[in-house]
């Protein structure tokens, strides 16, 4: 599924500010009106019903990493426009506006952080940056993450939230799937763990490369994780998809992930698993 194919998550109204200019927010799960501050302080998880709303990448750092600190790697890498792609609006223009809107240079950040004092290689997709789509820069950064973690003997924790490979870079985006997985192979050969965390949504070329190859695969409750987007499947087989199809719980049931982990216990779980895998 390409990055801008619309996925209508049940749990994504984090940007919809209701009346009262951001003082109040309505939960997507139970519809309860909450103080925006309460939701933010609870990492976008509804205190009443537990619905998970989208958490921005700085929120993820605060949630998972010690003191929320990340020493970011390779932030300077920026996309080129190999196809001179334009669908009425040029690719460069899209990149520029995504950069402006998110304050990020690309759809993924990588770097070094700590969890319970243990140094890790960290990667996190920004879904708000062109749907977290994986272009050349993202592939390059993920390959560098695996390579540098291999060189520095770090376990890798990677948070995915991506519609898939980025259409605007054509075949070069596709090639990132092979490049990243090959680099993951080096991490595995070095005997270092890879914890894959699938957030909402993880589909297409990201799902079909490294996202389900974790030594441990986790997903957030109700996260959509799958190869083909639901719309594509529906239009191919001309059937309505069953309730809960391709959600985290569905993947757990079908044996594709190890655990569905609520955001509130994510850090503790990752820390425990990393301790088990420590040599």
């Amino acid at each position, binding site marked *: 599924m390409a990055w801008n194919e619309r996925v209508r998550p049940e749990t994504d109204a984090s940007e919809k500010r209701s009346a009262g200019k951001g003082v109040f927010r309505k939960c997507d799960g139970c519809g309860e009106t909450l103080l925006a501050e309460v939701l933010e302080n609870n990492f976008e998880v509804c205190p009443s019903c537990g619905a998970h709303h989208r958490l921005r990448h700085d929120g993820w750092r605060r949630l998972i990493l010690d003191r929320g600190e990340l020493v970011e790697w390779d932030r300077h890498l920026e996309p080129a426009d190999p196809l001179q792609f334009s669908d009425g609006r040029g690719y460069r223009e899209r990149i520029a506006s995504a950069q402006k809107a998110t304050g990020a240079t690309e759809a993924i950040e990588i770097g070094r952080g700590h969890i319970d004092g243990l140094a890790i290689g960290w990667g996190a997709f920004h879904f708000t940056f062109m749907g977290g789509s994986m272009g050349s820069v993202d592939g390059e950064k993920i390959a560098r993450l695996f390579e540098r973690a291999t060189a520095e003997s770090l376990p890798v924790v990677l948070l995915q939230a991506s519609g898939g490979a980025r259409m605007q870079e054509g075949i070069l985006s596709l090639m990132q799937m092979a490049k990243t997985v090959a680099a993951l192979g080096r991490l595995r050969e070095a005997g270092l763990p890879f914890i894959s965390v699938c957030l909402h949504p993880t589909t297409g070329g990201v799902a079909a490369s490294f996202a389900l190859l974790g030594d441990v695969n986790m997903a957030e409750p109700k996260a959509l994780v799958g190869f083909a987007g639901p719309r*594509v499947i529906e239009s191919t087989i001309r059937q309505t998809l069953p309730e809960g199809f391709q959600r985290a719980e569905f993947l757990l049931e079908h044996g594709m992930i190890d655990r569905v982990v609520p955001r509130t216990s994510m850090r503790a779980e990752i820390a425990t698993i990393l301790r088990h895998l420590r040599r």
Partner: protein
Amino acid sequence: MSRTLPFEQPITELMQRVRELRVVADGDARYAGELRRLEDKVSKLARELFEELTPWQRVQLSRHPRRPYFGDYLERLFDEFVELHGDRLYGDDAAIVGGFARYPRGPTGRSVMVIGHQKGRGTKEAVRRNFAMPNPEGYRKARRLMDLADRFRLPVLTFIDTPGAFPGIGAEERGQSEAIGQCLLTMSQLRVPVIATVVGEGGSGGALALGVANRVLALEHVWYSVISPEACASILWKDASQAERAADVLKPTAQMALELGAVDHVVEEPPGGAHHDWDGTARRLDYALREALAALDGLGEQELVDDRYRRFRRLGAVHA
């Protein structure tokens, strides 16, 4: 689908005319020279016309109903093919075919593992092969055969021709993503020479799953990209019928893949395209495959892995 695409009509007609003349001349030596000149002229015309093809026209040629499929190359290029079935987990997927074979034909042949997407000719067979859109079982079979090849040190030759991995409920239930991901991982670690050839459609991850090779070849009129023009159009303009326009911006051709380094060598097709001359296409591909295989001879196991790693590692367009 019509058997002749509108843009190839004039060439197809001329070629047909020359063939008829040849029958009429019936080996008469007086006309031999004239016929040869006529054939050359038609070939030249075909080549000129085909150089100007739009990306969408190439996509159409890659899907031509009379285009040779994997099995047609298998018959022409390999000896002693022994098909191996099943993923040992769930089933056997007819959309991917694989097994032992000897390559090249003749005294210099050696055992190899050959794996490819298989389209079916005719409705019944096409359905049986699921239009070469594999389910997870296909990728798991491919992975099993690659692992087998690795253990017995057989070079792996793959043939890519798929609109994409199958987007279905069962495919998702049985882990299409994981199956493709594992294929990529296994392929990237093979200690044997790996050569992939795109012979028709190179539809996204479902194609790449057989494409992590030391050398990647492509026939002249194929498409290979991250998404099909139809799917691209339906995302960009909510209208799959704008595929032609999408092909123009997506540039999914072999020529673009070569320019960007995703393909190492484009194999020229006979005049008018592969569907006009299966034997001729197979001969050209044979030559390219032998050359690619010879170039990898003498590389050690680790060198082959490293060569493949470097090949993919450098792909991408990045401003540092």
